[in-house]
């Protein structure tokens, strides 16, 4: 390769500095390999900070009857049995150890009277299982991992965006990226790459996701030949803010319900009695989101089109101590005192269950040298994720992916990157500046968000999904013609022009998989196919690039051993 670009070389390159990326990087160093972490924002700002309610681990500190088997069963039931059983098992087995490890690195969780880590109830979890710090658990976790990483000496490339994976024949050889600050390009040479870039929620209009969640990792992995799986399963968190308009979509933690919050419609009815009389407000997210949506659609919504969520029956001091973030968020942004009256809430796009298809033990994707962990990887959560299982997922599988990537890197020879690949990546990035005319990427992004919100939302049908596939194809045409104003220096419009390409790839996969799955399961609800279908319950949808086109395949859901089947058959 020529000297044209700045080059950095590591055994393992981790893309993304949320919980999964940082945990992976720590593990690469523990294995004695070198690691670089690239992140789109400043270190410590990734979406892990937005995780509020807690990390699920069957430590049994509050409910001693809890154990990994119950956690496994809850996870599989929540995922409507489409999960990769082995991932769900490893996750349930290893989560407690991963949480204890955080404590040994300095994390300070809330405590029980006996001096153990405090655990709270959450939707779909049989026992009180979520280790937490008020409603800012994600911040505690990312800060702990960040401090640990800094202590071990991880090289972090902040405000640096990967636009393409580079290959040496069939295997991964690194990545092409650009520094936001100056707009300069940079090449990372690595024997293994771990993708930990999260989901693609920013493609929807009402979303809890920030500008970063544009499906980059999914899109670049797909372009490099990796398989995507279960892309139809997009989680709409039941409780986002609905009013005022500027705050629409901002997350209202499930911990409000975990601490005893009650949902009511405008008639004052506790409507969860109709939809899930057993679990009520602590039903799984797919069920609660559909219930709120149905109440609103049938005319029983609140003034601004949501439901009431009320925690004001609890003592004000308790609410302020256990939910301080929510207290301030509503007071400052919505003029609502949640210790005195109800919040207005409605569903918001929150999480991508689908992602890169990986090996359960190692997080290895189907491309040699490519690994994925956290929200970017598929399989762990099946058709619906339980609250609290994301923070534990990223710890368990971040560690596993880091370990496997380091081992892979140590056992493989040097990689070579051909100049032509790098030149092509550079050409793609510079193209929007070269077009004298063309529309703004912001306009296409707005239309994409409206389209997905309307056509690929909580309830879906064949006509809408076909229309969505058609529109996404049109957006792709338009995205190839966008023009960017200004210079390469810290230019958000330029950045969005690239993010848009990733969002379109990822959401095309969502729409195609959703169109194919002719049943309702978990987060995927088809009005035209409202029931479970036993045949579809045995299949995962797979997306792969072949001959330059997006192809849809099916794979059988892996079958679990008899003893685990027995576990699932047992009643509580």
């Amino acid at each position: 390769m020529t000297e044209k670009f700045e080059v950095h070389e590591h055994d393992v390159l981790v893309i993304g500095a949320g919980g999964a990326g940082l945990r992976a990087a720590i593990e690469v160093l523990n294995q004695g390999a070198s690691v670089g972490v690239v992140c789109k924002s400043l270190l410590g700002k990734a979406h892990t900070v937005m995780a509020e309610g807690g990390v699920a681990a069957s430590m049994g500190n509050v409910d001693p009857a809890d154990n990994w088997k119950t956690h496994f069963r809850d996870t599989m039931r929540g995922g409507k049995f489409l999960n990769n059983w082995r991932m769900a098992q490893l996750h349930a087995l290893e989560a407690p150890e991963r949480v204890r490890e955080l404590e040994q690195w300095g994390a300070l969780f809330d405590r029980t009277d006996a001096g153990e880590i405090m655990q709270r109830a959450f939707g779909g979890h049989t026992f009180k299982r979520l280790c937490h710090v008020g409603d800012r658990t994600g911040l505690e976790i990312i800060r702990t991992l960040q401090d640990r990483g800094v202590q071990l000496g991880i090289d972090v490339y902040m405000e640096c965006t990967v636009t393409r994976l580079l290959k040496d024949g069939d295997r991964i050889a690194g990545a092409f990226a650009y520094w936001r600050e100056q707009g300069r390009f940079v090449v990372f040479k690595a024997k293994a790459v771990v993708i930990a870039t999260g989901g693609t929620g920013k493609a929807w209009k009402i979303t809890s996701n920030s500008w970063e969640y544009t499906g980059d990792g999914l899109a670049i992995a797909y372009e490099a030949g990796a398989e995507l799986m279960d892309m139809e399963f997009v989680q709409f968190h039941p409780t986002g803010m609905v009013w005022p308009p500027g705050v629409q979509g901002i997350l209202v933690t499930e911990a409000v319900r975990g601490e005893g919050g009650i949902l009511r419609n405008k008639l004052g009815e506790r409507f969860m009695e109709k939809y899930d009389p057993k679990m009520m407000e602590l039903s799984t997210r797919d069920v609660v989101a559909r219930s709120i949506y149905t109440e609103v659609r049938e005319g029983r919504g609140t003034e601004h089109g949501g439901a009431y969520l009320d925690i004001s029956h609890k003592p004000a001091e308790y609410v302020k101590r256990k939910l301080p973030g929510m207290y301030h968020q509503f007071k400052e942004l919505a003029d609502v005192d949640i210790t005195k009256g109800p919040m207005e809430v409605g569903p918001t796009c929150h999480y991508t269950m689908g992602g890169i298809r990986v090996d359960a033990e190692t997080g290895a994707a189907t491309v040699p040298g490519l690994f994925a962990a956290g929200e970017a990887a598929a399989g762990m959560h099946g058709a619906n994720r339980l609250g609290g299982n994301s923070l534990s997922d990223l710890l368990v599988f971040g560690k596993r992916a880091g370990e496997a990537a380091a081992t892979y890197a140590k056992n493989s020879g040097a990689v070579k990157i051909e100049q032509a690949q790098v030149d092509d990546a550079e050409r793609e990035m510079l193209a929007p500046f070269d077009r004298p005319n063309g529309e703004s990427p912001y306009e296409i992004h707005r239309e994409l968000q409206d389209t997905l919100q309307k056509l690929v939302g909580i309830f879906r049908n064949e006509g809408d999904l076909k229309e969505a596939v058609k529109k996404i194809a049109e957006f792709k045409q338009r995205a190839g013609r966008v023009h960017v104003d200004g210079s390469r220096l810290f230019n958000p419009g330029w950045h969005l022009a690239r993010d848009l390409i990733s969002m379109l790839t990822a959401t095309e996969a969502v729409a195609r998989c959703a169109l194919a799955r002719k049943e309702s399961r978990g987060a995927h609800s088809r009005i035209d196919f409202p029931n479970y279908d036993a045949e579809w319950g045995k299949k995962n949808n797979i997306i792969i690039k072949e001959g330059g086109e997006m192809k849809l395949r099916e794979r059988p859901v892996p079958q679990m051993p008899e003893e685990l089947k027995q576990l699932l058959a047992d009643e509580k």
Partner: protein
Amino acid sequence: MAEVVMAVHRGDASGGKPVEYTVPLAPGMVVLDALHYIQGHLSPDLAVRWNCKAGRCGSCSAEVNGKPRLTCKTRMDSLPSDKPITVLPLKAFPVIKDLVTDVKWNYEVNRKIPAFSPRPGTDWKMYQEDVERPQEFRKCIECFLCQDVCHVLRDHGKHAEYAGPRFFVRVAGLEMHPLDGLSRIKGMRNQMGIGLCNITKCCTEVCPEEIHITDNAIIALKERVVDQFYDPLVWIARKITGSDGR
């Protein structure tokens, strides 16, 4: 629809000036919404940092009408609309472009702080009353508003010899961790220059997490520095034993 004029800093390291944009108002709108409107409709290359838009990540700091604020938590209806709303970058750090400043210095200071280091043989039991004090400090979202407003950095530019309130808060969190076995007090006095702080409480006033930075972190650390370095009995004992007081 009601409108408001925003005067937003445009420019880079070589200089810049406020540029006015007219933005339509919506109920409950925050300053960050107005900046996003400018990006999406008027000037797509306006550089702004943001992430969560919910006051939890500390990315969108700026000086709104002269006050260091998180733009995602600053309601437009809390600001006078009869004159332009000014949005300027943080003053304590060099401008990269528009509202984005170079905050790398903070990450360099952070790297020098000795990490959590558990006492040998610890049994990992902690009680709520013991963790509550350090938990307050761990609420910090690293928005760097306290660094921006601190006159030691803002007006005197003593970045080389002073760590700033953010890192006093971090050290306080480590020093008060019930199971930590290190002392960082010597570093506080020497490399981190806590003596330069003259407790004007500006940092506490701007903290969006309402951490009592001055009272609970800085004064507590200053007391520990005094106990260790300026207590006459300790001083005499150190002279006799030849110890440097860690």
